[in-house]
């Protein structure tokens, strides 16, 4: 007969509610490994673009952003993610060489229009520099770049001289190298 059905429903009715939640007010406990919205450490991102290349859905794009670390990321290009296309597969995180791109537990990205779910570096960045810091870093980077340029110019000069020297010494092999 069907007595058991009635027993079980009664048992559950008396039993408290455990799993169901009132969603926006009460959120579930998410594990540390949760793959939610990305987080970008702009201080360490080197703008290599590995995440762009691995993404199966082409949802990452490199965009210019000024509060990053120009010492590491010379072109100041950082990933911008289109969550309309993102599958949250985590391949970009796996491939990131500096581990600057990670995924957080945050998953609420609903917006009123499509542009709201394209999150640029400004939205996902942590460790943003302040304006002064950014300016200072930019200055440093400029100096570094200049120095490097100088060095490079010097190196190029030296190389040229060396090459010329080599050319003089051995014409055949020099041509082959080029």
């Amino acid at each position, binding site marked *: *007969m*069907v*007595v*058991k*059905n009635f027993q*079980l*429903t009664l048992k*559950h009715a008396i039993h408290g509610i*455990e*799993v*169901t939640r009132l969603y926006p007010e009460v959120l*579930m406990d*998410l*594990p*540390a*490994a*949760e*793959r939610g919205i990305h987080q970008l450490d702009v201080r360490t991102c080197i703008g290599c673009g590995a995440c762009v290349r*691995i*993404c*199966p859905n082409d949802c990452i794009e490199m965009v210019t952003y000024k509060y990053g670390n120009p010492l590491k990321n010379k072109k100041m290009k950082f990933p911008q993610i289109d969550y309309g296309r993102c*599958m*949250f*597969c*985590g*391949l970009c995180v*796996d491939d990131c060489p500096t581990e600057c791109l990670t*995924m957080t537990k945050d998953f609420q990205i609903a917006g009123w229009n499509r542009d709201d779910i394209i999150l640029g570096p400004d939205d996902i960045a942590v460790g943003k520099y302040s304006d002064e810091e950014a300016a200072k870093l930019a200055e440093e980077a400029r100096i570094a770049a200049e120095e490097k340029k100088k060095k490079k110019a010097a190196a190029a000069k030296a190389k040229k001289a060396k090459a010329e020297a080599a050319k003089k010494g051995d014409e055949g092999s020099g041509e082959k190298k080029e």
Partner: protein
Amino acid sequence: MTTANDVLSALQSAFPGAIQEFRVEADNRLWATVDPNKIVEICEFLRDEQDFDHYSGAAGVDKIDEALFEVTEILASHGAHPVVALLKVKTPRDAPSVKSLTDLFWNANWYEREIWEMFGINFEDHPGLYPLLLVDELVGSWPWRKDFKGYPDYNTNERVLEIINPDGYAEYKISPTEAEIEAGTVPETRPEYPTFREREIMELETESEMILHLGPQHAIVPGPFMLDLKVDGERVKKAYLDVGYIHKGIEKILENRTYIQGIPITDRMCYLAALSNNEAFCGAIERLMEIEVPERAQYIRVILEELSRIQSHLLGTGEFLSLIGGVTYSPFQWMIIDREETVSCIESVTGARITHSFIRPGGVRNDLPDGFAEMTRSALKTVVDKTNEYKELFLSDSMYEMRMAGIGVLSPEEARRLGVSGPPLRASDTPYDMRREDPILVYPDLDFDVISRKEGDSKARVEVRLDEIIESCHIVEQCLDQIPGGPIQEKVPKKIKPNPGEAYYRVEDPRGEMGIFLVSDGTDKPVKVKVRGPVFAYFQALPPLLEGAYVADVVAIAGSMDACTSEVDR
């Protein structure tokens, strides 16, 4: 036990010269290229003399360099021996035609139709070569060929032409532009055949018969597919099934992705079995690369796959209950709650609730977190307790018995003939489980039973699932006890480029036999990925099973099969 070598020698002696090439990959894999004229006889010989009674599928490969098409027929046995024979038939690319196996194996029908509509390979003597997955307008452009140039852009609304048909319903036609015709995206000639609707109308005989559409938007369908019933009163006289409403072309997408990028795509074939799909795909890559997965990674894979099986069965059973009892039937909701806990266990490892993208060639993405074992053990304990309670409930519920016993009976012979696999097959007294037949990972070291039932009705199918939940819990507990330490990822190159060759890898999906047939040419993208999904096979078996049932039973039968449309239309 018969091995691949035995089968090969028997074939060679029976058909001298018909085996053009062969390769014995292992004891249970036989690859052979056979004479196209003899394929039917060879298959008949294998079926009758060598117990190859399980037609597992067919895959087409476009060898554009050699101007050839290859059709690979995959044959296996229902438990008599573990050999899988993959017989390749070559056919020229300009006039492709292969002999049909539908006379030998009933379930070859859909596989051949799929190859026909996707490659344009004709199957001689096929009873009805109609498109299965594609829209009628797209048939003729043969999308899976390598020289396919893409469809015309049907997204532009300005070109849409609305045609009101005599019944007053609007149809939409999109005529291609001249530029598109020149670019070759529109087929020049289209095969002619009656449409699905016309075929149905042709079969209406008496005035008291009517065609009742269940779907594509109907409460019983787990995803969009159309089940049309020819009913007289409420008795089903014949059923027609139309799939392809959400065809995603995953096999074609995989051909355009690198191997590692393909993993998240395989999740989407069936998100209830995402881990099994990952496993099948990565397993096939590992076969080609000949790498061995570290033992800890193997254990992690087994744990997660079994947890995934538990959640899939819980959802499948719950959904089935909602079909026969309404969404207000409480056990449906309880099962969803149990499933949530199981999913949370998986999530704590993989970081995602349904689409995990977790398994990598040569290992897994990350290690088990701290406290996983305790969490899983407590979750499993509730699952086992609750499942036992459900079993007791169904045993004592005489209304359930009235509704389900003796409904949709599949006899063992019929089940094998229709090519179903997984729980529906095991419910029909055929203990056929890939974990036993084609053991992978650490399954040989684990102690588990293959659940089967004798009755073969809807009730038995549900019982098998409930028992498998308990058995899976048992497996996970064993794994948690035995799991060794060590690395979780074998060294693989950053850019995966498997050796050129072919591999066929089978896993036991929650729904049955999931096989991936992978062809590589040594680059970082596969040449061909063929997914042999279990639900494709059940779906084909649904129409004959429904004949003679009541409309209400249709729900019970279709629900007890636990179908996943997403995977049919992968």
